[in-house]
């Protein structure tokens, strides 16, 4: 009895932390409609910041807490809302989720960079470490009491805020009716900003409390959010009391599991499967059940949708692309070092995984956060099936994983949007914990996947595997093109564009979604099955799936080219890190940074640049000019005329600031052409001629300078060459005063007066 009470208290204190995190998640979701996957990462970053102030710089705890929770967290929340989330109104759910994934990746990158895990650091101690209090014969640490107190305080403060202050009432009002709030004179943007600040504070508080219990590790802190998801989903993403109750239940389940798993009668394995990963899976299982208990999402007409501009790929272009890709890989693979070959091979493996998202997310509009999980299952199937890697084994492995994909999707496809995405995430975490981390699955940490046995061709070198991977990507890419051009492809697009219309025309949405999931799982399985080497479970971890999803969305999830871009970016990122070691840390935040820009420009900054590149694609002279410039910069570097840093900065500048502007310059009037050309030329000269290695003394400053250069010259040249209509926006504060002339009136007056420009 005593023991049960002890574990109840432990459970409730864990639940208290979950409750604090989950309430922050609910606050932002209800006020801005964005489900923040990066919420746990915010808490993680806050915990690290607090550690830095408190334990590394030895600030007094109250001061460190004040700075972290009441200055930096709100500031972070406000900046996130203003510069990332605000641009997301009216964008598709896929883009919104991807942006929070990007934020997630960005923050993990920052933490890895600033606080590398190998450094031996001061311990993160509990509040009042060592102090306990005895209640009813049970010793409870002060830290746990404080955690309790915080949860209760948060509940009271939130209650008072939401029901007693105008800001809080306005937050609820925005949920009820955003337009009416504006008509009342409230500013939903300000409300959202406040909500994000509050949410970041709650995440920070939870992160600090949890770090005291579990030490400072990135992963558990970030995945804390899974527990929060489960609690928030129990509260249906809007009901705070229910969310708190859900959090308490989760905490208790965890504690009781801990208690009972020590008993002799508790099974150590079920049907040969060890259940050591079970405890960590509890929140995920609860999340899964809570999601499945949600009612079927209703079929609605009139939902705002974002249109893809992708044309139907033609056979001739696709075939040419496929052949060219293989030819290029064959040609350059002979010149690569072994380690670079492996990196590029990695890139192609990622590209195949990314390709699996094209039919599912790109065509059918269904978000999945688990593509790598299916690749992992493919690898396991390939290694466990008999046949030692012959073609039939591959086919059987792919079919098995495709069936698993459909089976997993079956209960989940009643859901849509974030609920579907979360259920795929829950699935990925479950598979990671219960299957990938099994001793039986991965003997001594990794398994050997046999090399594909193709008649008459022997593949035994990394180069051979690289060519095989590029050929596999090309073939699968052609398969995806075939799907897009088929009856099924049209149905997938119809499903995304208007489920209501598709259903009323006689389409079974369930069957179409199942097909999409099965195909996607099958393609991803190929990536694993073709690994042809020893693989470790960490490679297929859930958190590794997120950058793939992100970069594919950035690259353009609706096209095979976008998948290639996404995969190679991820692979190329590590190439970059190995070529220019000083950039190692930069590569950690690069994917996240690129993804976050999706928020500034919902169609994607990458999309915008891609648009510019696309308009280049049939202008051979400009293309040749751009390529020549790139080669010149490369030669300068290869001949040691400029440093690696100058090469990197001028190269990126050329790619992102100059090249996308070429078409605009070509089409601008003569004077603008000259001005813009000179302007950009100055930019290039600046980028090349600065002594980056010595004059600028840190990596961070160099990168800031790079961003400024691109903003100043690239965006400047764009403004110079475009002729966007001027937007007239009057302030109504001066109602009743004299009228300002409008542009039309000025134009009219000028015409009347005979002024000719």
């Amino acid at each position: 009895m005593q023991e049960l009470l002890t574990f109840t208290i432990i459970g409730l204190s864990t639940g208290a932390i979950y409750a604090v995190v989950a309430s922050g998640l609910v606050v932002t979701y209800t006020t801005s409609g964005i489900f923040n996957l990066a919420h746990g990462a915010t808490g993680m970053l806050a915990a690290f910041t607090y550690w830095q102030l408190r334990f590394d710089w030895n600030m007094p705890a109250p001061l460190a807490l004040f700075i972290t929770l009441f200055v930096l967290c709100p500031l972070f929340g406000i900046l996130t809302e203003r510069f990332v989330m605000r641009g997301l109104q009216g964008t598709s759910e896929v883009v919104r989720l991807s942006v929070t994934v990007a934020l997630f990746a960005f923050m993990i990158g920052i933490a890895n960079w600033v606080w590398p895990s190998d450094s031996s650091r001061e311990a993160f101690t509990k509040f009042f470490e060592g102090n306990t209090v005895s209640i009813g014969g049970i010793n409870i640490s002060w830290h746990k009491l404080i955690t309790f107190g915080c949860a209760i305080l948060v509940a009271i403060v939130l209650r008072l805020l939401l029901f007693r202050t105008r800001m809080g009432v306005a937050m609820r009002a925005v949920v009820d009716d955003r337009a009416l709030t504006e008509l009342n004179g409230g500013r939903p943007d300000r409300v959202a900003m406040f909500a994000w600040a509050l949410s970041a504070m709650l995440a920070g508080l939870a992160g600090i409390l949890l770090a005291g219990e579990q030490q400072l590790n990135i992963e558990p802190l970030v995945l804390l959010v899974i527990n929060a998801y489960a609690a928030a989903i129990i509260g249906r993403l809007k009901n705070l009391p229910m969310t708190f109750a859900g959090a308490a239940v989760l905490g208790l389940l965890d504690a009781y599991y801990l208690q009972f798993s020590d008993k002799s009668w508790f099974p150590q394995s079920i049907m040969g499967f060890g259940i050591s990963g079970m405890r960590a899976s509890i929140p995920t299982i609860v999340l899964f059940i809570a999601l499945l208990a949600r009612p079927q999402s209703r079929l609605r007409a009139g939902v705002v949708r974002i249109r893809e501009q992708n044309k139907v790929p033609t056979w001739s272009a696709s075939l040419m692309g496929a052949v060219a890709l293989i030819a290029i890989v064959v040609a350059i693979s002979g010149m690569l070092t072994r380690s670079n070959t492996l990196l590029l091979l990695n890139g192609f493996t990622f590209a195949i995984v990314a390709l699996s998202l094209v039919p599912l997310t790109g065509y059918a509009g269904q978000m999945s956060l688990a593509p790598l999980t299916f690749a992992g299952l493919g690898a396991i199937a390939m290694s466990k099936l008999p046949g030692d890697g012959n073609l039939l084994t591959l086919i059987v492995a792919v079919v098995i994983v495709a069936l698993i994909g459909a089976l997993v999707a079956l209960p989940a496809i009643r859901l849509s949007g974030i609920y579907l995405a979360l259920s795929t995430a829950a699935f990925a975490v479950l598979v990671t914990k219960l299957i990938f981390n099994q001793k039986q699955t991965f003997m001594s940490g990794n398994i050997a996947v046999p090399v594909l046995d193709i008649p008459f061709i022997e593949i035994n070198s990394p180069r051979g595997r690289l060519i095989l991977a590029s050929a596999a990507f090309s073939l699968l890419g052609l398969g995806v093109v075939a799907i897009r051009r088929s009856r099924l492809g049209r149905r997938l697009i119809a499903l995304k564009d208007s489920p209501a219309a598709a259903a009323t025309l006689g389409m079974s949405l369930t069957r179409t979604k199942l097909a999409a999931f099965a195909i996607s799982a099958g393609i991803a399985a190929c990536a694993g099955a073709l690994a042809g080497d020893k693989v470790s479970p960490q490679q297929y971890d859930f958190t590794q799936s997120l950058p793939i999803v992100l970069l594919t969305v950035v690259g353009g999830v609706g096209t095979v080219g976008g998948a290639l871009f996404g995969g190679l970016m991820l692979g190329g990122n590590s190439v970059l890190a190995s070529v220019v070691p000083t950039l190692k840390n930069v590569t950690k935040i690069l994917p996240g940074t690129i993804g976050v820009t999706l928020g500034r420009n919902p169609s994607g900054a990458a999309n915008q640049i891609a648009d510019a590149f696309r308009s280049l694609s049939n202008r051979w002279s400009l293309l040749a000019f751009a390529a020549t410039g790139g080669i010149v910069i490369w030669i300068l570097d290869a001949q040691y005329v400029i440093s690696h840093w100058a090469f990197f900065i001028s190269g990126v500048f050329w790619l992102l600031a100059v090249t996308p502007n070429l078409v605009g310059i070509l089409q601008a009037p003569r004077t603008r052409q000259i001005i813009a050309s000179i302007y950009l030329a100055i930019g290039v000269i600046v980028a090349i001629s600065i002594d980056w290695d010595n004059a600028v003394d840190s990596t961070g400053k160099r990168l800031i300078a790079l961003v400024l250069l691109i903003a100043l010259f690239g965006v400047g040249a764009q403004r110079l060459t475009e002729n966007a209509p001027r937007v007239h926006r009057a302030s109504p504060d001066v109602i009743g005063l004299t009228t300002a002339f409008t542009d039309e009136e000025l134009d009219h007056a000028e015409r009347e007066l005979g002024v000719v420009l």
Partner: protein
Amino acid sequence: MTNPILELRNIRASYGSIEVLHGVNLSIGRGEVVALLGPNGAGKSTMIKVVSGLLRPTSGQLIVGGRDVTGAAASALARAGLCTIPEGRGIFPNLTVRENLLMATFSGHKLSDIEERTYSRFPRLSERRTQLAGTMSGGEQQMLSLARALATNPVILLLDELSMGLAPLIVAELYQQVAAIAAEGVSVLVVEQFARTVLGVADQAVLLAHGKVQVSGKASEIGEDVLAGAYLGS
């Protein structure tokens, strides 16, 4: 009438690719009550959205008090004295009556003043101040939305389909309140499907159909035959 308080000049507006207003001109003088009539789908609610700042017109100008405010945010217009009671119920259903009135304080008035004026005008609401607004009857909900107009002393009042789904007796009671607001010198633009209901209150009437102004003139001069033709075809 040399200086209209609200003027629409050649306003065009669309939802996505669907253009709903094809160049509307309208002018309201200070203290005037203008009824905007017309059948379903004529573009009346769209016009209210444009005037209140919720929908940005694709072209044309919106002029308030002689000043071009095309493209200004709805919240800024609201703070400047433009009070809009939107279609349906202009209330927050999951807030209490009192919290609904708290939202009206963005206009710069104190909550206590707003409450006092509201409860003196609608005693029934004072009994329900802690009740969720969404659980009240349709008539009470509409009183609550009108209370914002009564208590915040706006310059211009926009009313969209006050009567939708309400019994005729309640509608008549609500329009008495509208007349009282107008008597205080507030300019009112009122959208109504039910022409007969509103023509007693209005000075001017504008008949909108197919996104264009078809007829406009003194409210008393618009005949039933014109209306019946516009609504049911002739």
